[in-house]
């Protein structure tokens, strides 16, 4: 449809004019509050307390969310918010990975706060338009868009009924609509969800950035936890921001020189070493598909196994040689030389409403290839790219979709569900057509796709209640915790990673801690205390990226040549120093590594208490499915019998001679479950929590987080 027709059809519901303002050392000092129930738009000051205790990014998001909601707020209540905030470093162009936004909301999957880290230009352009954060509240009756014009200082809420809903179409339409000309398109950033977000609990948000070489609006995803579902439930079709004069010094940094120097150092490192290390610039994060397979860590058939002979069909070189466009600088914000935002161009779609279209597919990232591919036993690169594309444009989280589909497939193969229940879909492992059908059903809101789209947590309940499935078995094989699907790594052989998934605030996403190699292969953290230390340091360190608007990848997906000579190479000490220098350069704040951990601890403990306020966040909520810890079925045990028998002998002194598989499995299980409990004790202790997982008042005092509203929540649980 003609863009002019779409635009002429818009109805202005509210307009707000503001002074453009100036950024001072990374902060604009105010947030944009928009309530779409009342069509109210306001400016809110950012207080010194917020900067001191919450820093920015996810910290600001959680603080606003806490104040906007009550202990009984549900994800689809009008008071639930979606907050987008970059953080003080967000928007610098000198250092790779400095354009991330953090998005927070109460999740329809977990019924507690979720946060998701995303690239694309929205966060930085929002800040340059004069706003540290966007706080979106309320529910509209009709489909609307919100347009922030950072050139003229206006914010408008407009009814927009004719535009598409699917991300790749809507992103293009609005980029075209709000750019003055082709050149201007890179100054427009759009946030969309997609049609699938309307009918599932795994909706995501697409953040665009315009790619002038390909001439398409590329999509980066705030994937986890169903924020896109909240977005569509509020009837928001899109957010648009426009800002035309991006420059390297717009943050008005305290010391520009140090930013330049630190950036140049890392660019050189990336240039010299990336080809020898991870090849991020050629393939992005998908470089590890075959590596995970070789180490028996790739999720195969709903995490039953860790490798498969057919992985060679989807290994990274297949994507590099045949699909992923090479030689293009694919950064998701200016200045990212690591440039991992790869894409397959001119990809011909074979199914669904866009069948026959040639499209740009953003990806595949490792998680997509593993979740949509090996975990569902779809060892077909084109199948993976097709599912990847449709997940994105429909606004569906690839990880939750992959893991939930793998679960449904296992249930189908085991006869827990059948063709009658699936509405005729043959959900066998490896059946690409059925997986694609599920996805198209999610978009239309029909069929078994809607059931899978509710996620594993709700599927387990349904299968047990309605179809008489064994609830305990479903608990064992359903790879979700706290309502969120696991991301795509097998954790059976790494106790520390079981904690890296299970002892998290938002659910089993590996972005808090990825300790598999340190633990299982390197054997660097053998004791419970060692593991607890790692499960303290890494989650805090990684939370910190989300406070400042940073991408985690340039921290450890590239390492300095002399990193191996340092005392703690896993931490990449030189890069940690780079980050401290950058924060100093932008804000003028001189932090040490301990301060860094402290800053994160404040927000991390706040999030834990937020969970507790919503009736979660206790030890019982940190229990994990046994599939994440060990072999649930005979087939799994027997496929790695030598390993398990060996462990029974060596670690427990159990004589396996003459024992049945069932007997051995039972002994192994009780041992591993006990290990997880002991790990939980050690981690809670290290984090300053009591044995029920509740932050102690003493610890909150130490952190300077003994705010009355927090004490109120935890005091009865000490």
């Amino acid at each position, binding site marked *: 449809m003609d863009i002019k027709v779409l635009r002429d059809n818009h109805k202005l519901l509210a307009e707000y004019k503001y002074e453009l303002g100036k950024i001072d050392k990374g902060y604009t000092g105010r947030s944009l509050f928009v309530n779409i129930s009342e069509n109210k738009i306001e400016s809110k000051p950012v207080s010194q307390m917020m900067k001191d205790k919450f820093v920015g990014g996810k910290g600001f998001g959680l603080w606003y969310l806490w104040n906007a909601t009550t202990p009984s707020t549900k994800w689809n209540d009008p008071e639930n918010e979606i907050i987008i905030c970059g953080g003080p470093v967000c928007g610098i162009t000198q250092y790779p990975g400095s354009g991330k936004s953090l998005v927070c909301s109460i999740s329809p999957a977990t019924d507690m706060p979720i946060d998701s880290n995303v690239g694309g230009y929205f966060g930085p352009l929002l800040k340059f338009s004069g706003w540290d954060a966007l706080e979106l509240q309320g529910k509209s009756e009709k489909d609307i868009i919100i347009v922030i014009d950072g050139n003229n200082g206006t914010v408008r809420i407009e009814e927009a009924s004719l535009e598409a809903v699917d991300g790749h179409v809507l992103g293009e339409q609005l980029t075209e609509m709000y750019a003055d000309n082709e050149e201007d398109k890179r100054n427009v950033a759009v946030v969309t969800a997609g049609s699938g977000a309307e009918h599932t609990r795994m909706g995501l948000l697409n953040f665009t950035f315009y790619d002038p070489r390909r001439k398409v609006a590329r999509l980066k995803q705030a994937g986890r936890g169903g924020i896109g579902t909240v977005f569509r439930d509020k009837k928001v079709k899109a957010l648009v921001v426009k800002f035309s004069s991006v420059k390297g010094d717009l943050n008005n940094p305290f010391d520009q020189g140090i930013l330049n120097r630190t950036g140049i150092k890392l660019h050189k490192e990336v240039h010299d070493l990336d080809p020898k290390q991870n090849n991020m610039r050629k393939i992005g994060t998908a470089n*590890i598909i075959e590596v995970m397979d070789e*180490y028996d860590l790739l999720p195969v058939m709903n995490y039953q196994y860790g490798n498969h002979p057919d992985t060679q069909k989807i290994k990274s070189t297949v994507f590099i040689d045949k699909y992923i466009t090479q030689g293009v600088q694919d950064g998701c914000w200016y200045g990212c030389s690591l440039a991992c935002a790869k894409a397959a161009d001119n990809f011909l779609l074979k199914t669904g409403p866009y069948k026959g279209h040639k499209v740009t597919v953003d990806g595949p990232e490792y998680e997509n290839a593993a979740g949509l591919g090996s975990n569902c036993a779809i060892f077909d690169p084109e199948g993976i790219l097709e599912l990847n594309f449709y997940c994105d444009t429909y606004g569906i989280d690839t990880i939750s979709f992959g893991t939930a589909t793998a679960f449904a497939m296992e249930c189908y193969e085991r006869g827990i569900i059948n063709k009658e229940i699936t509405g005729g879909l043959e959900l066998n492992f490896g059946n690409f057509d059925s997986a694609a059908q599920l996805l198209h059903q999610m978009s239309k809101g029909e069929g078994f796709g809607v059931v899978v789209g509710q996620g594993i947590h709700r599927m387990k309940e349904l299968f047990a209640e309605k179809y008489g499935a064994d609830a305990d078995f479903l608990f064992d094989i359903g790879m979700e915790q706290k309502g969120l699907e696991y991301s795509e790594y097998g954790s059976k052989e790494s106790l520390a990673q079981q904690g890296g998934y299970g002892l998290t605030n938002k659910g089993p996403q590996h972005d808090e801690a990825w300790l*598999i*190699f340190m633990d299982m*292969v*390197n*054997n660097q953290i053998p004791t419970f205390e060692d593991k607890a230390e790692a499960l303290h340091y*890494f989650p805090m360190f990684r939370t910190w990226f989300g406070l400042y608007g940073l991408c985690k990848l340039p921290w*450890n997906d590239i390492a300095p040549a002399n990193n191996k000579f340092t005392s703690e190479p896993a931490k990449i000490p030189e890069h940690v120093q780079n980050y401290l220098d950058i924060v100093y350069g932008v804000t003028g704040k001189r932090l040490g590594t301990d301060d860094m951990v402290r800053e994160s601890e404040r927000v991390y403990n706040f999030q834990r208490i937020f969970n507790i306020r919503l009736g979660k966040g206790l030890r019982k909520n940190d229990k994990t499915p046994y599939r994440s810890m060990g072999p649930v079925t005979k087939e799994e045990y027997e496929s790695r019998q030598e390993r398990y028998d060996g462990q029974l002998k060596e670690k427990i002194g159990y004589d396996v001679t003459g024992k049945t598989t069932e007997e051995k499995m039972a002994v192994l299980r009780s041992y591993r479950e006990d290990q997880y409990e002991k790990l939980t004790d050690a981690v809670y202790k290290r984090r300053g929590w009591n044995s029920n997982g509740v932050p102690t008042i003493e610890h909150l005092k130490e952190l300077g987080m003994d705010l009355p509203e927090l004490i109120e929540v935890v005091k009865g649980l000490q």
Partner: protein
Amino acid sequence: MIKVNNRDFQWEQGMTVDDIMKIKKFSWPKIIVKINGQHVEEEDYKTRIVNDGDDVQMLHLLAGG
């Protein structure tokens, strides 16, 4: 017997760093190798002989997905 990452490992006469990596199927591109605390450069993996009783560390550098 030698130690590889603090676990017992069957030693054989003439064994090199590269041999151990093959047996262990260590294919990750970023591995730091130390023998008795001394670094071994990648170009020496095929020629560096490991002696009985050595303490070998093959540290995979990846702390994040």
